[in-house]
């Protein structure tokens, strides 16, 4: 009881000083009572949207944080990005890599197409090898952080933080508050609304730490794994910056899986960017990062890759690779 009281006090103190959230879940777009209840009654009427069996940890309305998040982010709330399959929210938007992709199941299932919620899994490319049960709040702090998308500052809880600042490392074309809002659209989450400058790979590599290094190799190879944070330069990096810059032809298309070779331009980091425009301008200096090839949440294809690279032979099999390498 004392513990719960302290939490309640903390929540109200945060609200009193204004939210720490720089992104969503702040500025009035969400209410505390959307997720929490202070007086869960087991004997009386359950709070609106509450799950039976409470009270729950952290005064949540629903026992599982993942299921709580997905009450809004399952596509039922038009103002909240849909991150649970099936996703129709971005269909036809021309920005199919939106919202970090989607999970194949709410929790408890291991999939081959993305991160798994609520089930113990071994963290790929981690050293030492570690296992974890991933939750929405493993990566996002619903109360907000100084990071873009409320990303937690220390994903692996090692004590070393990674900041991904909106307006410094990531840029949006549409201001983060206008929209989305409860009465607005999901436009803010569209992939085309985002430009990246830095830190995204660093953030992912906090858990997938093996991939945080761009290991050099013996010439004429440059790396012994696909590099991250590498640009098209120097010119012997076995890619085709001209093809990338023009963005026409092999690899580039309107939609993934439309039967016509080519997919929308992959995401990239622009290390010298100062705003959304410069962060979304194709150039030889653009860098590949984790999000170039992978959805953060998951997607329709194996390994959370943005195109059917590890799936069946299809028109788009090579599209993602060809945008940069044009082999």
């Amino acid at each position, binding site marked *: 009881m004392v513990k719960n009281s302290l939490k309640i006090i903390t929540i109200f103190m945060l609200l009193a000083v204004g939210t720490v959230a720089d992104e969503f879940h702040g500025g009035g777009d969400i209410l505390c009572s959307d997720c929490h209840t202070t007086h869960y009654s087991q004997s009386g009427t359950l709070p609106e949207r509450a799950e039976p069996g409470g009270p729950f940890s952290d005064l949540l309305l629903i026992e599982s944080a993942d299921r709580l998040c997905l009450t809004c982010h399952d596509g039922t709330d038009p103002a909240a990005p849909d991150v649970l399959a099936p996703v129709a929210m971005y269909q036809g938007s021309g920005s199919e890599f939106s919202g970090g992709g989607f999970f194949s199941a709410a929790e408890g299932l291991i999939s081959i197409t993305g991160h798994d919620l609520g089930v113990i899994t071994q963290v790929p*490319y981690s050293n030492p090898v570690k296992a974890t049960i991933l939750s929405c709040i493993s990566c996002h702090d619903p109360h907000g952080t100084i990071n873009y998308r409320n990303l937690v500052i220390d994903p692996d809880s090692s004590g070393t933080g990674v900041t991904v600042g909106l307006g410094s490392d990531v840029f949006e074309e549409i201001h983060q508050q206008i929209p989305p809002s409860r009465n607005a659209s999901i436009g803010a989450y569209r992939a085309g609304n985002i430009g990246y400058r830095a830190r995204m790979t660093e953030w992912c590599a906090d858990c997938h730490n*093996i*991939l945080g290094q761009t*290991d050099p*190799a*013996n010439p*004429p*190879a440059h*790396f*012994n*794994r*696909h590099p991250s944070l590498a640009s*098209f330069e120097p*010119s012997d990096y*076995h890619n*085709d*910056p*001209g*093809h990338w*810059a*023009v*963005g026409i*032809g*092999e690899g580039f298309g309107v939609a993934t899986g439309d039967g016509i*070779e080519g997919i929308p331009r992959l995401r990239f980091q622009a290390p010298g960017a100062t705003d959304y425009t410069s962060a979304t*301008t*194709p*150039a*030889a200096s653009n860098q590949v990062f984790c999000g170039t090839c992978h959805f953060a949440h998951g997607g329709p294809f194996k390994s959370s890759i943005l195109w059917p*690279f*590890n*799936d*069946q*032979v*299809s028109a788009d*099999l*090579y599209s993602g*690779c*060809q945008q940069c390498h*044009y*082999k």
Partner: protein
Amino acid sequence: MKKLIFICSTYFTIGWAGGIYAESGTFKSSKHADPGIGVHRDTNLPRGNCSQCHLQHDGDLPYDFALFAPADNGTCLSSGCHDYQYQWPPGDYYWSFPGNTTDWYNSAHGASAGQFPPGNGRQVALCVQCHDPHTAGDSIHGVYPSATRELEERGCYSNGAIVGQGCHGMNGSTRPAGADDIYSQLLKSSRHNVEASAKEHSTDWQASYPYGRESRQVNSGHFSDSNRHVECVDCHNPHKAVSGGHQIGSNEIGGALLGAWGVQPSSAAPGATPTSFTAVDFNTIGGSLEYQMCYKCHSYFAFGNTAPSGYTDNAREFNPANASFHPVQDTIPTNSYTIQTPENGLTQTMDNRWNNIVHNKMTCSDCHASETATDPGGPHGSNNPYILTGSPAATDIAFCTSCHLGLVYAPPTRPIGETGSRFDGQTTGEEDASHYFHVTVRGIGCRQCHGGRQEPPPAQPEQRSPYPLDAGSAHGTNTLVGLMNGANISAYVPGNCTPTCHESITYSAGPE
């Protein structure tokens, strides 16, 4: 607009400068990417998927290029992909006869300790020196066959887009140790013009014929008319060839032709054109005969009865049933004067190179090669017509006397005794009926009496200047014995010669 200008300038500056992107979208058309036959090392992944070779985030061990194995030939040859040998159906020949991994490591290329470019640490023996696993191509020719980095022969003598600067190019500083300059030969006035055609081997390149093909059937059309061609790989198998030319005096191939193929004609009547052939793979040097390779293009096998302009049917000319011939296909039945025999007083009549225990046969490349003896062997090119080592002019004797001893056939002074030739004063009983009188005194050229024409010229009116020569007439003839089909010989039998220069002469002929 500024963005567009930036994009365009980037493209032109980085993408097109130097034309370094020879791949440029060719991979999807490659055999490695083919949905039917493409790479499938990992059956959990789509066939042809990049991860079949590149593991992106590396596997258990980090290798260069994120490959699944060390970035050396083992990636290709020990991966379950190219471990042993390719297969092909009967009837068609998939160039360039890949052989197997043992052949490769024994070959001149596979065993080479050289580097290309010299000093850069990259061995000649690396598969990727010649092959681009992603496949290359260009806007004119499309995808290059067999995933070569360059278009066919250019891969042999070019370095990237710089023609003539490759392994067999003309620049000694860029040639690996042991590599010959072939490119310079191919620039000569007479040559096997490997640049004249492209992709003839792969015009039917499709999934069921993944390595390109040439028919091994007679007069298939793959060697004639618009398909007539010659490429380096028509004669050389880069996966199996070893260094070295053929042994003089034998008609077997040299190591450089090992792994290629040819055709053996069935026997034909004297003067007849062989029309039946059997394909022969040059699996070993012993038993593989150089003419078999040449017949592949220079006989009925290639063009039927209609030889291309300027060409003749060599299998007809060298037919061992003919009245006389150079011993390219078989020995000369009556050879008592070109080797040391009791009949010629055991006199040496051939150059020392033929004066050995296998001196009774020869190869096409004995006569067809560079005019410069120190150049690489083989009929790559010459500044003489027909890729000849010497001038074929009727009045020029130097070409013939490079093998047939000048002391015998063009003695500088009047011989006193036996010359070793059937046609000397001692044998014929007449000083004028001799090589000395005709060649040395009267300046008659070899081909005025030997190997000049297929049809004898008329005896009348008398003419001492040579009648026009026929190409291939020095190879052999069924018209006259002793290769007496000279440009000025109307009729000949041993002991009686009817030239166009003077009246018929009867003399004493030596024994056969």
